[in-house]
């Protein structure tokens, strides 16, 4: 293409940044190494999966599952267990919200000792220490609640109060309480400071600021996170039963150990139904309430 118009003399092209530089290649190599390491370590076999032995095994197992057990008796029982699982997730979520609400305000730095609510306080250092201690306690409690896997909580509670959906619901509530506590905490720490500053300037007490300035902002997000978490909860509720905490999970464990594959398929279909239902409910409520 002939050069036609520029007034300035022909410039040399600027230097480009080579994408294939040393650090990029190292990152790529590291990534690749991780992949190979995991591939070998997990005894993953692509060949076996794509038409080899594993494929045959999986296909044979899948065929075994059909047809689902649709006998009236079993269907009724499945319906009952499905409702039981739903109840577990429902109450578990409510319990989680209660626990989270109880702890979240103590585990937020901007409500306990940092930020503009406390800038004017210089005296009474022991109070500050007390508050910090409370903060640490709340924060670590939430951490423990959410890091201990929900299955472990379920095992503990089954151990304490026996089998059935009650320990499952408790376990769900406790574990999710920790999760929601953390999510709520992030919301509280990111709250908009202007309304709070205004309220504080009028001489409102900290408790009043909480109700008038903070809660109105955070409640909609709390609701959204709770509903979102319910979708996760229902899936967890399903499997908690595996360790004896009632609901569909318990029945699945039984069906598996007794090799009742057709019943297993029915139960899986029930899981699909209830999870999809809760997903829809959650989305619907989020659109209406938030």
């Amino acid at each position: 293409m002939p050069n036609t118009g520029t007034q300035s003399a022909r410039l040399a092209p600027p230097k480009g940044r080579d994408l294939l530089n040393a650090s990029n290649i190292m990152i790529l190599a590291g990534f690749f190494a991780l992949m190979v390491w995991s591939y070998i370590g997990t005894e993953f076999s692509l060949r076996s999966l794509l038409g080899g032995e594993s494929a045959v095994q999986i296909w044979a197992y899948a065929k075994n599952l059909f047809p689902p057990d649709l006998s009236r008796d079993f269907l009724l029982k499945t319906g009952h267990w499905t409702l039981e699982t739903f109840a577990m997730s429902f109450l578990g979520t409510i319990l989680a919200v209660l626990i989270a609400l109880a702890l979240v305000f103590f585990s937020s730095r901007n409500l306990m000792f940092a930020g503009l609510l406390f800038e004017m306080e210089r005296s009474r250092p022991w109070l500050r220490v007390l508050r910090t201690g409370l903060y640490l306690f709340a924060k670590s409690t939430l951490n423990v609640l959410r890091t201990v896997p929900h299955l472990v909580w379920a095992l503990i509670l089954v151990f304490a109060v026996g089998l059935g959906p009650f320990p499952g619901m408790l376990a769900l509530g406790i574990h999710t309480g920790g999760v929601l506590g953390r999510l709520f905490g992030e919301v509280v720490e990111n709250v908009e400071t202007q309304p709070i500053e205004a309220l504080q300037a009028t001489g409102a007490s900290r408790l009043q600021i909480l109700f008038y300035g903070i809660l109105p902002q955070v409640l909609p997000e709390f609701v959204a996170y709770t509903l979102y978490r319910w979708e996760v909860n229902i899936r967890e509720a399903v499997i908690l039963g595996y360790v004896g905490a009632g609901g569909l999970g318990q029945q699945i464990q039984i069906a598996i150990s007794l090799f009742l594959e057709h019943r297993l398929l029915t139960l899986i279909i029930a899981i699909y139904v209830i999870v999809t239902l809760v997903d829809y409910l959650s989305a619907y409520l989020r659109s209406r309430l938030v």
Partner: protein
Amino acid sequence: MYKLDRVSKVFDGRIVAVDELDLKVRRGEKLALIGPSGAGKTTLFRMLNLTIPPTSGTLLFDGLDIGRLYGRRLREVRRRIGTVYQQHNLVPRFQVVHNVLSGKLGAWPLWRAVRSLIRPAEADLAFEALSQVGIPEKLYDRTETLSGGQQQRVAIARTLVQNPEVILADEPVSSVDPALAAGIVKLLIELSETYRKTLIMNLHSVDLALAYFPRVIGLRDGKILFDLPAAEVTDEHLATLYAGSQTETTEEVTGRAELRPVRACQPHLTS
């Protein structure tokens, strides 16, 4: 180059955007399209650059019936038509060089396109094109750091790299600083003249259309109101064209026909 025969475009079975349009454009012509908003100019353009098919009527490009083109053939014909958009439609995160070279994607096989993302395949070509539009130093800058006018020039450079036979410019200066608008219009006209390309431009500004284009078409409600040499466009034509439209009052428009500046040699705008 183009022959449209009773071409219509109807959306959702109800909204008639283009209404039985007849149009002939010869190779190498320069033509401006004006009209109020919603007249169907953009829809017409999208049919001319083969983005959407007409609902009825025949559209011939260089003798080819575009309604019969599919897959590979369709892409080959698209390569021959270059488009400059109002919103420039560049990829913001890319360096300028990748945006410019994306004009070549119609010609490159997939593997070449991938390789070019790692190491730009024809960087000198991109540099040449950028020099033509006046911003060669921006070759490796991130596109989103450029100003609106500069980004539009990058878009024009992309079209240069594509090297099409036709350039369609859909309101290329509407989102650009008015002070720079004339510069960009002139650039496109010069480039199309130098490389003997057909140029069809959609313009909001009647001034620019009458000042730079030998042939002006007025479009309203999907129909061609007039198709005249610029010198023959009168205030009455403009009044009928923009009557009742909310964009400009008819008085503002009719005064324009007298302000037509002579196509004199103007200094080359390189900013």
